[in-house]
């Protein structure tokens, strides 16, 4: 890992893998990283865990922070939810712990 830069992989809805670099010192989250690379993530609510439009599946065994109640609640309004893998990208804050994370974008309902 370079200084303050981690690598994450995002698999889009067509199955194409995108290897992205994400800064750990810009207070970003996975929804924003996807948007900054113009990947098709809406992020409608701007990152408040209030819309589920950044629903993604975690495909790597990266250890992530537990889901907050807000995130769990919002996943209730999402579709194609996988209890083991589903997360909201906006709630995955870019830290060095996320280095080599692999996520797959969930289908749009």
């Amino acid at each position, binding site marked *: 890992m370079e200084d303050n830069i981690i690598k994450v992989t995002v698999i889009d809805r067509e199955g194409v893998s995108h290897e992205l670099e994400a800064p750990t010192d810009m207070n970003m989250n996975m929804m924003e990283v996807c948007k900054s690379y113009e990947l098709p993530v809406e992020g409608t609510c701007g990152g*408040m865990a*209030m819309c589920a439009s950044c629903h993604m599946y975690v495909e790597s065994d990266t250890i992530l922070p537990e889901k907050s109640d807000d995130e769990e609640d919002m*996943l209730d309004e999402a579709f194609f939810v996988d209890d083991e893998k589903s997360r909201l990208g906006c709630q995955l804050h870019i830290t060095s712990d996320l280095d080599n994370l692999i996520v797959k974008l969930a289908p749009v309902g």
Partner: protein
Amino acid sequence: MIETDILIIGAGPTGLFTVFEAGLLKLKCHLIDSLPQAGGQCSEIYPKKPIYDIPAYPEILAGDLTDRLMEQIKPFNPGFTLGESAVDIDKQEDGSFIVTTNRGTKHKAPIVAIAGGLGVFEPRKPPIENLSNFEDKGIEYIIKDPEFYRGKDVVISGGGDSALDWAYFLANGVAKSVALVHRRNSFRGHLDSVQKVMDMAENGQLNLITEAEVIGLNGSDSLNEVVIKHKTQGEIKLPTDHWIPLFGLSPKLGPIAEWGLNISKNSIEVDTFDYSTNREGIYAIGDVNTYPGKLKLILCGFHEATLMVQSAFARIHPDKKNVLKYTTVNGVNGF
């Protein structure tokens, strides 16, 4: 027919502030919004969230911002068509527009300002293949009249307050039977609502099916059975007259996308000189527009609204002179 000077589509913060700036120029406004209340996302998605980047408010709740804007525009007595969405726009020979809502309400104005934010809030629809076959034939996304369900078998899906409250209400002597299907064991509704539903389930007044979701629909002319996938019990088939999926609302640009405006990435392209679109007399302000350097901020929407009404004034009164007047000098003279 409702007639006004500026017809604003969208009653979020940008749309509301437009009324104020237009009022200073003695232009009247009328607002259309698909939601039943003003405030847009601020009142629908995050009324209790604090906003920190409104000048002179170190912190203000989104719901309070809406209330303050409503107070600020009160002197200008705007009209509202709430709970209806703008569907059609027709240009008249005199250059004005007639905008018709989904309920047929007609509005006439020389200027249309689209302040539609992310679009029209619509119920989130579960991705089930034959869903549309049963819409209004057993599937309803909104409960308009609970009496409609009297004596019927009803299945409700969702884990929020509306799912819990309606399940409780309909199971209380209205429907013949009520089943509540939810993805998890816990609910996000108010503790009180959750407890009431849990109690009913325990007393056998309501069929609570958790760790489950509806994945299939069966019926001929109308719905008569839902297929539920349960985490441990596999597939359950449940006969029912109605299924009410309550998964909240999500915004879609909707019919405005068909108004002949230049659209890029779900947003309306504008000229930053006056936020005009490619159609004369139609402007787009706030989160709904896009231009090089666009930022989707309430702050920027206010600025765009202010410049837009200057251009609207010149269009409505081509012969009248207009100079910038300060509210500190003249105060606010309503009408």
